[in-house]
């Protein structure tokens, strides 16, 4: 393990978020581990229902309880005080308490998928950004407004001194997403969680937003958790990648490792199933079946009913562990486990 903690921003260990519903328990996040350092981007990729958004919301403590509950694990947010490295465990905080509120928006910023629903329609863009700044910082309203205008300008919104007084509906989708980023970065967070930030916008706008995030990252040393279902977007922005399937990380590693040498059958099947813009045009090989319902996660390895490398009698019985096979490349699959038969 990396013992240099001076660069560490966040460390998630064995995190479990379950939802207790009438029809059963959904283990939305079921033992997730990862860490993220200053200036780095962790891409979390997976299909709908894999738990990637719940992971993000758990870190922000935005999971409604009941029915949701953190049943185990820790979320360590590192900081430096008087030359010593210390951490707070976000998982232990009161979700409505003072401490998490001083972290949410200040230490960790968040950008959501649909900026229309994450801004209040009743207040101007400026009101909302200024409010966010004033909650966390002891400055005058005038200063907060100036900073908001500066931020809007930085994210590439034309005529920011006028746009600041517009309502969200008056802006286009791309502009709203920029304003969202401006708000998320308004208090200089150390970690930005971006949950499908480009899924609702066009490719040209997506390219602008990806560039913008990378620009801020270089400038502020921002750590980013970037959640998406789009493999190509991940290829552009991530340093490390976590592939999630039904609440678990099934593969983790540096981007180059994941793309050039995917180990988990799910990861490699995903690569074979998406159309590409470059290279030879070959027939796509779809993954058979569907993502199972979260109430009925299959026994053993959750991917085994769709896996083409299934070893019956093993994969449908044993739950594989996430094991490191070198270079920090980890995989959760029976093919790589040492089993005693």
């Amino acid at each position, binding site marked *: 393990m990396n013992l240099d903690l001076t660069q560490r921003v966040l460390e998630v260990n064995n995190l479990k978020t379950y939802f207790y519903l009438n029809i059963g328990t959904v283990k939305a996040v079921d033992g997730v581990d990862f860490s993220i350092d200053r200036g780095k981007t962790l891409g979390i990729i997976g299909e709908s229902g894999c738990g990637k958004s719940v992971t993000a919301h758990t870190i922000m403590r935005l999971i409604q309880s009941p029915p949701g509950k953190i049943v185990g694990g820790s979320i360590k947010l590192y900081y430096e005080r008087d030359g010593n490295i210390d951490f707070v465990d976000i998982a232990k905080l009161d979700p409505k308490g003072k401490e998490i509120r001083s972290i949410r928006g200040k230490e960790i910023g968040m950008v959501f998928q649909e900026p229309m629903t994450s801004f209040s329609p009743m207040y101007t863009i400026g009101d909302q950004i200024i409010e966010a700044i004033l909650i966390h910082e002891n400055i005058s309203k005038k200063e907060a407004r100036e900073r908001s205008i500066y931020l809007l300008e930085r994210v590439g919104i034309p005529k920011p001194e006028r746009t600041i007084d517009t309502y969200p509906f008056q802006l286009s989708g791309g502009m709203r997403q920029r304003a969202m980023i401006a708000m998320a970065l308004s208090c200089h967070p150390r970690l930005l969680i971006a949950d499908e930030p480009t899924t609702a916008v066009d490719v040209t706008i997506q390219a602008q937003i990806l560039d913008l995030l990378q620009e801020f990252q270089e400038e502020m040393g921002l750590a980013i958790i970037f959640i998406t279902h789009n493999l190509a977007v991940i290829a552009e922005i991530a340093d490390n990648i976590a592939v999630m399937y039904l609440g678990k990380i099934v593969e983790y590693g540096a981007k180059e490792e994941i793309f050039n040498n995917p180990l988990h059958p799910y990861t490699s099947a995903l690569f074979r199933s998406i*159309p590409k813009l470059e290279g030879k045009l070959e027939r796509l090989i779809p993954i058979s079946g569907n993502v199972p319902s979260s109430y009925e996660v299959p026994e053993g390895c959750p991917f085994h009913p769709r896996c083409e490398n299934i070893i019956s009698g093993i994969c449908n019985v044993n739950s594989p562990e996430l094991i490191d096979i070198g270079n920090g490349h980890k995989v959760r699959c029976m093919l790589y486990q040492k089993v005693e038969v």
Partner: protein
Amino acid sequence: MEDMNINNQDNSLIIVNNLRKYFPIERGFFRRTSGYVKAVDDVSFRIGQQETLGLVGESGSGKTTLGRTVLRLYEPTSGEILFRDGDRFVSVTKLQDEELRRFRRNMQIIFQDPFSSLNERMTVLENVGDVLLINGLASKHEVIERVIEVIEQVGLRRDDIRRYPYSFSGGQRQRICVARALILRPKFIVADEPASALDVSIQAQILNLLKDIQEQFGLAYLFISHDISVVRYMADRIAVMYAGKIVEIAPKDEILLSPKHPYTEALLSAVPRTAIERRRSRAILRGDPPDPANLPKGCIFSLRCKYAQEICKEEQPPLKLIDTEHYVSCHLAENLELNGVKIAS
């Protein structure tokens, strides 16, 4: 565009000439028309038999409106749509009520969202088979047989016809929509983002299904998508749409390797790539597309175009033929060296 019809008429299934669809903007108490949204503005193209024309563009560019206007689900403002019927062409734009209804058997549509395009209160049998009854094409008994046949062709089981849509996943629901489009044995299908609402691992299933039935039934597609990689996989030729107009149309490798319109270049450059390489410098497109109710005077792309010159702000460029089957609407097309993508193996 005149020559386009005559030269290529031999294998064309559908020919669209100068199609326009304007939506009036109504204002005030008397709902006076104060302007028009030019959703589709002077669009011409053709689609050959068993050919797939891919249509790409950003949201609001008019892709969906074009697809629906071609089927006359929206009444065109002006223009002509010709559809092959044996060895002659029928003018779809001139067909009246009953004639149009009968002719629609030849052309079907698959929508993006399989969750809102099936009737939840009807079984699969009714969802898929009712068109046969409505058109008086089969008896009740025959309908069941035909539905079973088509439902198996799209990869579902015969027992599934008694089930209701809610019990199917997104991918399976889209298969039902494909079955419904197929049951009238059409020659032409507008597929409007048919895989975009589905999970990544399911998308390929639907794309492959559409390819397989195309081969099996000799279908032609107008395949609409915002995702150029998907269009590359599906299409023979690609049309690029911007603010209601087709700005470039060419065989797919031409478009990808050597785009001739600056917008096509920018669009290709914006697409994220799965190939791992050092961060490339992207030709970032600034700003947003123009408001279709208030388009610029000259070239519609001139406001965002980095190559724009005086003429671009004054005059609208026509869609010109510059190479075999390669049409582009740009004043500077012959003088620009634009970057495409590497598609070589």
